[in-house]
């Protein structure tokens, strides 16, 4: 099992980095330029790991990125990656969907402590923006997740995947929930128009302002692992999981490219506009889906 976990982390690391590289590359192509190589984010992270210095404001600053990475890895191992194999089944059944909802926020909160320790007002502003955005961002996602839990009468992801084999994919059965969750996902990936916390033109780099060298590298690495975990979670919940590596890549990439295409053509909301928007349209869509499940399902 330990071996499997390490294998999974490495898979997530590689796939996550390639996705992040693809993100930059595809964005560049749309912008009409050649763009960096697919491995560019990997180079970046190795370079940052090999920096000779990295500043730290004390032990809490040191631990913040570690907590964040822990949250990401823990999320990863609790999300079932392959639907039919026994791969890490024994681990993923230890958790449930509610646990994942909270684990997804654990990392950012841990990092927020480090940001606060650094004491940079820009960083704290970024954190506050992030947490404020979270109010709006979580709402449609919660609705979608609650809808799924009630529809499949289980908060066990493995069960939700299995159920889709008989009832059909959730994206078709509960399209409203999928749309609501997808809009949230755009925000969870930090894509426009919800890339508010780290907006460079406004808050200088947001929560990452003070992180350098290995800390930044750790944040980047966990970001790619986390991105992979989130993609897998979405396909588990709505696309019936993946039974092979190819299906995994195809399905996650489909979600991923959607997020890129949404992100590239929009600017950035202000935080209050983002929350207002998220509380209106996606929430409404989600509530329609939810009511459909409860009263007519």
């Amino acid at each position, binding site marked *: 099992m330990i071996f499997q976990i390490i294998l999974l982390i490495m898979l997530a690391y590689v796939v996550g980095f390639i996705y992040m590289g693809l993100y930059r590359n595809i964005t560049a192509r749309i912008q009409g330029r050649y763009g960096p190589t697919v491995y560019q984010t990997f180079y970046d992270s190795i370079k940052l790991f090999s920096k000779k210095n*990295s500043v730290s404001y004390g032990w809490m600053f040191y631990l913040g990125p570690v907590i964040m990475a*822990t949250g990401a890895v823990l999320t990863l*191992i609790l999300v079932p990656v392959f639907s039919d194999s026994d791969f890490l089944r024994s681990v993923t059944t*230890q958790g449930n969907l*509610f646990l994942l909802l909270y684990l997804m926020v654990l990392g950012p909160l841990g990092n927020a402590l480090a940001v606060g320790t650094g004491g940079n007002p*820009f960083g704290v502003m970024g954190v506050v923006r992030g947490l404020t955005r979270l109010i709006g961002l979580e709402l449609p996602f919660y609705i979608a997740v609650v809808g799924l839990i009630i529809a499949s009468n289980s*908060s066990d992801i493995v069960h939700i995947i299995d159920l889709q084999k008989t009832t059909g994919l959730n994206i078709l059965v509960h399209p409203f929930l999928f749309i609501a969750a997808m809009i949230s996902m755009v925000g969870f990936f930090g894509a426009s128009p919800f890339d508010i916390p780290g907006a460079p033109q406004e808050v200088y780099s947001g929560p990452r302002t003070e992180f350098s060298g290995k800390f930044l590298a*750790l944040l980047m690495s966990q970001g790619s692992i986390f991105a992979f975990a989130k993609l897998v979670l979405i396909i588990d919940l709505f696309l019936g999981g993946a039974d092979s590596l190819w299906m995994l890549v195809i399905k996650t990439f489909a979600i991923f490219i959607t997020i890129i295409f949404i992100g590239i053509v929009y600017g950035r909301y202000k935080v209050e506009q983002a929350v207002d928007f998220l509380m209106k349209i996606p929430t409404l869509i989600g509530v329609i889906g939810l009511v459909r499940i409860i009263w007519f399902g």
Partner: protein
Amino acid sequence: MNSIFLLLNLLPILFLYQFGGDLHVSLSLTKEFTLSLSQTPLGTFFAYLSLISFLLVTIAQKSKKTSFSYYALQFLLSIAMLAIVLAGDFITFFIGWEIMTWSSYFLISKSSDIDTKSLQKYILFSLASAFSLIAGMVIAYSFANSFDFNVIQNSFHTMPFNIKVALIVLFSLSFFTKAGVIGLHYWVVDTYSKAPDLFSSILSAVMSKMGIYGLFLVYGHLVGYAELKDMFGVILNGTDFGYVLGWIGVITSIIATFKAITQDEVKRLLAYSSIAQLGYIIAVIGMGTSFGVAGAMYHTLIHTIIKLLLFINVAAIVAQTGKNKFSELGGLIYRTPVSFVMLLIGIIALAGMPPLGGFASKFMLYNAAIDSKFALILVGMLFSGAASFLYCYKLVYGIYLGHPTSKDLETQKEVPISYLIPQVILALLLVATGAFPGAFIKVINPILIEFSLNTIPYTSMGVMQSAVGNFNGLFIISAFVVIFVFILLLIWRIKSKAKNNLNRFDISYCGEVPSKNTQLHYGYGFGTDLYRIKFVNAILKRSSSPFYEALATQTKKTAGLLSRMYYGNIHNTMIIILLFFSALYFIGVN
């Protein structure tokens, strides 16, 4: 003095431990009035909860100069609470309730920064709560001809429907006031924030739980969940009654959460947070399912632990620095590291984050909602939970992180050890509940049996079992620790040298250099952005104080004679009121 009262506080615990289990004592005064104590699993749970809380707070009081009368009143309060939770009939219950009210009133008045307005608010609402209770008692007595809980329980289904409703509403109002449901929370914030710092922990952690105990007593014991279901009918998978209560709880929770974020005073934030957390409990308490009751019980336990921890922590910081506002604190992390870690554990649990106990209780609450298919209520609870991250972060940032706002904060020392001991105990409890979420099910199951509900399956200490999935707390916490240590070692090994003792002003500041006088602490501005969000602004703009102030002025205007009492000596007023209602009571009885 401290050690004496420490021993004195230990006594009831030992007593309960030794003689507890199935305690039944009764003392007949007259034919009709019998004072009786009868121990139920529910009462035992609350008894231990409150007694241990008192013990821990007494430990913390060691380094704070405290008068004899304060200790005595506090002990009296603990005994009163014991009387409430062990009471077998309404007379005992009410006596305990009144002693609790009055002793707490005098304790609050001992605070240095209390003002008469807050005190009046507290006592008026307490009295209103008591009157509502009395009215309920009297009505119940008039039908059951007894104050004994068991007699009332047995004769409840024979009462007419409107009487049943009236009883439930009266009792609910009384206990809602104590718990601070939104609309009736007017007294809570002022009282919590202005009471003596350590006593605030009692108020929030224990006294508000007396309201919850009362609700359990009424819904579970006197009325019975089955009766509730019969009375009000079924919606989705739960009861109509539970649905209404669920919305009350969720709305309480959401409003209080947003209010908490915008507070500048530390204890006000905690007070609002307390209201919000009790909102969760109220949201599930009426559902009438085993998960509803279990979730409410579990959250009662966890909230008591958290709020004791946080209030003691804050009390220590206030005592140490003399400051109680986020705009005046900041940057204490390396001055008071132990306190910081304790607060951190507290807020992780408060936010409901795994792997600590906070998540276990939240999971129970959510399961209860899922069980009844109250999806929107569940979404509301989750939403309020997401918003609560903001005030959790504000709490830790405002006090410990960021930049010190004044020079004397830079030379603070760690708080006295007597404050730390209870905090460490409570933090360990949180870790334990996180690692062994299933252990508490054993405590809950007897209560469920008492309420004639299904028990919750129990597999092992580490696993929390539920109808819609389970989680293994032990696995989560150990996986968390293992991964954490692994990544830490990995990072440690990387040769990128970390400059550890960087000056706090050495920040990226757009090429400029902040000076010692540059204000960099974000504590005050934290949360002001919420006013720009339309939905949140609509919540924050509203306040119950205009309503109550208008009520007060109207009362003053109309009741010309009576209004003089409000201006006069508060004690006289109270005595008059008490006499008036005792007279009413005797008229009613006869």
